[in-house]
């Protein structure tokens, strides 16, 4: 533990200062302390963290991990193909987009896993629907109201009282977190929990009853209000004073990951973080804007991983990217690409086994529309994450016939 880390004890101390506001130590605080004191996340067997990164809009996987040695690639994309000599080569068939040098370094250091050709049967090419499929882990002919992490929270985290079990950065809660009970806090930034000065906090603490009133709705609100107060300031203070060990780009995505790193370091009792990078829906003139996004992704991810590693937190953090679909092999008439099917996923940290997982997609063997035919079902990646990383029975959370992807974790 480095000197400037606040960590759980510091977090607790700050939560404890709330006691000064009450006339007596309210019982909510004792409860909150119990929540925060128990190592590592009360009610969970370990302190592992999952960071989900959504590449919204459908990332062009074929210009991300470029099959530069495949003629079909160059022939299908006369205007959009990345030149072979520019590709950051991984092997004699494929390599990363030239702007992804930071991620290439991560690969060279053995910190990056790439799952290739991930999708699902009967792919849907609507953003709305395919996002829903990825978020709920449903089949494409099936509609589920709950998200895969929401079901994980409902099934495996019932004994965990943390009000911050999931944290989503953004404006809308992703369906990934939809469950029976809301266990996820959605915020654009941690100042959500700031309530002005001590006096304001003191008044708020005062109107939150510590004794049950018999009105179940009121008691529920009062309890949740106590959670808010316990989380209040402690989070934003922890985040403000928590140093990081790396320099992040000033853009939204990287800065959000910086806050996530701070929160992980401050041992905020959160199991799953969710961050989005948007703008991947490139139907036209995609070369430049896609390159910029890939650079943002690559820099953000690589800095985040390096930061966590520097703070000794990478062992307990798994980062995983996903996107609702990849894009069609053939470019369209507008120097862009249309909605496709199979795609790749990046994973880093945790106990993930670095390197390639799964077969590369065949560019010769396309479906009727001209899209890649997936070979790995994304739900088998989720199943691996659930069983190997979060250590729960994936069959309680997803269709039982889904098998974990073998060898994803070492």
């Amino acid at each position, binding site marked *: 533990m480095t000197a400037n880390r606040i960590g759980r004890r510091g977090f607790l101390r700050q939560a404890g200062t709330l006691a000064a506001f009450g006339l007596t130590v309210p019982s909510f605080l004792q409860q909150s302390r119990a929540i925060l004191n128990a190592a590592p996340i009360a009610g969970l067997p370990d302190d592992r963290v999952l960071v989900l990164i959504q590449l919204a809009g459908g990332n062009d996987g074929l210009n991300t991990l470029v099959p530069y040695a495949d003629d079909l690639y160059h022939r299908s994309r006369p205007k959009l193909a990345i030149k072979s000599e520019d590709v950051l080569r991984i092997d004699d068939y494929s390599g990363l987009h030239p*702007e992804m*040098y930071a991620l290439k370094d991560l690969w060279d250091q053995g910190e990056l896993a790439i799952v290739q050709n991930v999708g699902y049967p009967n792919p849907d090419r*609507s953003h*709305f*629907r395919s996002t829903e499929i990825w978020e709920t882990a449903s089949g494409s002919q099936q*509609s589920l*109201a709950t998200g895969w992490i929401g079901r994980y929270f409902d099934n495996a985290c019932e004994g965990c009282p943390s*009000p*911050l079990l999931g944290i989503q950065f953004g*404006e*809308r809660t992703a*369906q990934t977190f939809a469950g029976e*009970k*809301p*266990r996820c*806090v*959605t*915020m*654009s*930034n*941690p*100042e*959500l929990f*700031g*309530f002005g000065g001590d006096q304001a906090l003191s*008044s*708020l603490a*005062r*109107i939150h009853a510590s004794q049950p009133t018999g009105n179940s*709705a*009121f008691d529920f*609100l*009062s309890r*949740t*209000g106590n*959670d*808010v107060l316990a*989380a*209040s300031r402690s989070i934003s203070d922890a985040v*403000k004073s928590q140093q*990081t060990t790396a*320099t*992040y*780009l*000033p*853009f*939204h995505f*990287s*800065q959000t990951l*910086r*806050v996530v790193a701070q929160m992980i370091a401050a041992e905020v009792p959160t199991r799953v973080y969710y961050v989005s990078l948007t*703008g991947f829906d490139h139907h036209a003139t995609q070369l*430049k804007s896609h*390159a*910029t996004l890939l*650079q*943002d992704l690559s*820099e953000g991810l690589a800095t985040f991983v390096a930061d966590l590693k520097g703070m000794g937190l990478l062992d307990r953090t798994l980062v995983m990217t996903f996107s609702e679909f990849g894009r069609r092999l053939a470019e369209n*008439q*507008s120097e862009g690409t249309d909605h496709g099917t199979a795609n790749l996923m990046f994973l880093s940290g945790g106990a993930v086994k670095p390197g390639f997982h799964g077969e590369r997609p065949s560019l010769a063997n396309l479906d009727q529309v001209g899209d890649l035919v997936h070979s790995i079902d994304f739900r088998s990646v989720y199943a691996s994450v659930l069983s190997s990383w979060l250590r729960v029975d994936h069959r309680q959370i997803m269709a039982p016939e889904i098998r974990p992807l073998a060898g994803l974790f070492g």
Partner: protein
Amino acid sequence: MEKQPTGRWTPDDVRHLLGRTGFAVDESQIARFEGLSRDDAVELLLREARQAPVPAAPEWVKEPWSNTERRYKDTTSEEFRRMHGMTNGRYSRETADLRRWWLEEMIATPVPLREIMTLFWHGHFASSIGKVLVSQAMFQQNATQRQFALGNFRELLREMTVDPAMMIYLDLEDSEGQQPNENYARELFELFALGHGQYSQQDIQETARALSGWQLGPEPGVELPQRETDPETSRRFTRDGLVPQLNADRHDSGSKQLFGATGNLGLDEVVALTAHHPACASFLAGKLIAFFGVDDPNQSVKKRMAAAYRDTHCEITPMLRVLFTSDEFYSPNSRERLIKSPVVLFVGACRQLQLEVEITSGVNRYLSGLGQELFNPPNVKGWPGGETWIGAGTLALRYHLADVVLNSQEPPGMDPIGRGRGRPIPLPKDPAARQATLRNLMGGRPGGSGNEEGGAMMRRGQPGGPAIQIRFEAARLLPDADSLPNEELVTRLLSRMLTISVRPELRTAALEVATQYTGNARVPAIVRLILSSPDYQLV
């Protein structure tokens, strides 16, 4: 109909009734209802809700609607891109305006029950702009739901089944006889009319066949250009209108069986068989009972409501009459424990505090953050409501309501991190050039790093006008506020803002706040505390 007992009708009952059937209790309304019996009060409420004038449509609504991104075989991709881009932009502006239009109606209407019921149907027959995309279709659906809000359910069900937004949302417009799409048929039974377990997969399939062939087309008499369409083009770009019509070529006219009826069943038969299905009456009654937060321990209200529905051939108002006049509605277990939806919370505050409100994008962002963005329900089930409105994040955001309505500010925590420089720009690969670019981004400060800047970037900054434009004036709320002693001021504000009884702890805290502030600051400080209380979340 048998008269309900009216003996225990008290002023608190009036507050309870008006609180649940409106957005917030309005003192002038209480005076109108207090002198009436319970039955007469409910009658007045229902009559006014049925007779309220219809608000004028937003100005961008066009009759007939035309598809401004219609794609033909000979449309050049350049022209298509232009039309598509412009249409997308217009749809998103119109959707924002549609939200403004409805919220303004809710804030201004003297007859809130009709809007409350429209909100109920919006969640019941849920469709999302996220999939529908066509703003005018969402308006049309809302207008229909308002028209039938206290009308006849069978008629509403028919309208909703071939409602353009619904047909797009649940894929009915893509359903044809050869391979009927079951999406709508399933939700019709499960979510709209009967409830899970009241029908079989066979019923769904037969219904899907009966409803096959309905499509959206042009108004009769509209001349369509003689241009060919590529059959691969997606529906969005080939629709020529929003008028439901049965295309006989795509309809399965064979014999079907549903709920004991056999024959060439079609839309009207499916609607009638469903609305008159024995499960429909109690399913609807149950949803209304839950929506209005009534405790019905032995299902007696539900049974009476269902009977009223059946006796009147699917009328909605008689069900509401039973509900609002029932003793259960006024029982202790039905009171003070309904969690306000975000829309009711916000609209209620606007009405109670007599705010001057402009509905801006920031208001929508706030409601969306609280979990209820209008015209964008989370899924076809609508908003589950109740305790699901509340988590640590959404409650924290609710506790910032005072920032929005008193200070005209977006609450903290709404700004994306890195705003202003949120969108990435390409960076040179060369390390020195890269450093220079980053330095420039940081405003040329030497040694500035992303990290130091991060904190500053979390601060609010509003490009393009204020996100919230709300004016609160204590003098409008209480003209004699300055002369009121603390006790009296607190009592008046609590009674004006809370429908539920005042908890001593809240009163003590409010009094303490009153002593901490003087002059103009006193009223806002007390109001702020009440808005940030668990009590204020309840009605």
